[in-house]
């Protein structure tokens, strides 16, 4: 794509972001939401509440844990802790995205508002494509994609809710399996920094390891411990390579 100074208005880039709804990541996420919808229907959560949940929580793993807590009869505090522990990852994800999309003049309130639309799919999509968007339009591009993705999935869940309960098991299983497979393929193929490859491999091993060692805090420990190890290894290689040159 052309990266000269004045190409397109803010509205053009918002629309370009909106068109991201027809991209492979968006379609896979929608299929995953059909799977989530089947899960909530089986759990007996009313459709209005599922739609509300999609809009306000948005991150899919957090919603699965929320519904799981509700079904397990957890009280408000326990559910809050379970969901919040599962969502700590959103902080470094947003922190890594912000320097890529803001300009010196982007107001903080706008970033706070738009951060709501960050979940794994929107994050992977934005980190992958934002490089080809002129910097002053990246906010508009992300807003167009993020807002469209949330609203479309709210509508999707409202529509498919009453059809999903009697899906054949093979379809339900494949819908569930799409999510992890898609994350793996897209993170690897969109990585622009060598540290991403190292962190992805170490994180895959660290997840089960910490689940075995400390199941309460596994994701957090795997992220901070595995991520720090990946960063240190990659930095070490990088420094050695530049010392040799």
């Amino acid at each position, binding site marked *: 794509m052309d990266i000269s100074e004045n190409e397109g208005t803010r509205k053009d880039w918002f629309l370009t972001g909106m068109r991201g709804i027809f991209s*492979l990541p968006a379609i896979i996420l929608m299929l995953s939401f059909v799977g989530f919808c089947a899960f909530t229907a089986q759990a007996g959560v009313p459709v209005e509440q599922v739609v509300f949940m999609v809009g306000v929580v948005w991150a899919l793993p957090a919603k699965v844990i929320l519904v799981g807590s509700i079904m397990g009869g957890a009280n408000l505090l326990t559910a809050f802790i379970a969901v919040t522990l599962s969502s700590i990852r959103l902080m470094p994800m947003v922190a890594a995205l912000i320097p890529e999309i803001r300009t010196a003049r982007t107001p903080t309130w706008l970033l706070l508002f738009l951060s709501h639309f960050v979940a794994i799919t929107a994050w992977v999509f934005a980190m992958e494509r934002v490089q080809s968007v002129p910097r002053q339009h990246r906010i508009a591009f992300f807003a167009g994609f993020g807002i469209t993705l949330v609203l479309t999935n709210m509508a999707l869940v409202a529509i498919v809710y009453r059809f999903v309960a009697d899906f054949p098991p093979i379809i339900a299983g494949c819908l569930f399996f799409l999510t*992890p497979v898609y994350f793996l393929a897209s993170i690897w193929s969109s990585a622009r920094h060598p540290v991403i490859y190292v962190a992805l491999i170490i994180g895959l091993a660290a997840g089960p390891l910490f689940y075995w060692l400390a199941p309460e805090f596994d994701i957090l420990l795997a*992220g901070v411990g595995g991520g720090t190890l990946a960063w240190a290894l990659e930095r070490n290689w990088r420094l050695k390579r530049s010392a040799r040159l």
Partner: protein
Amino acid sequence: MSWDDGWWAYAFIAIAGWLATDLWRWLGVLAGNRLREDSEALNWVRAVATALVAAVVAKLILYPTGILEQSPLWLRLGAIAVGTAAFFGSRQRPAVGIGTSIAVVAAGLFWLGF
């Protein structure tokens, strides 16, 4: 206070779902606003964010919920292995890797009589 009690359900979702997730997003904005795009600190944040997502992925594969909970581990790991081979064999085209993995899972579930 049963789950279906109107406003209580929405308040529950708002507090245990909305607040519990957006809290971290807002902290991420405040932290990300201080990071320079070419800094070593941002490189570390990238590594941690990626490792966290990878850990979630590993758990989804090893400890799935729903129908896959009853599927054998070898089928899920085999699907990932075959999908990975297809991904690298096709010059890293995501659609090829994803399609192959899903096809293996579908065939395996069918063969096992699901």
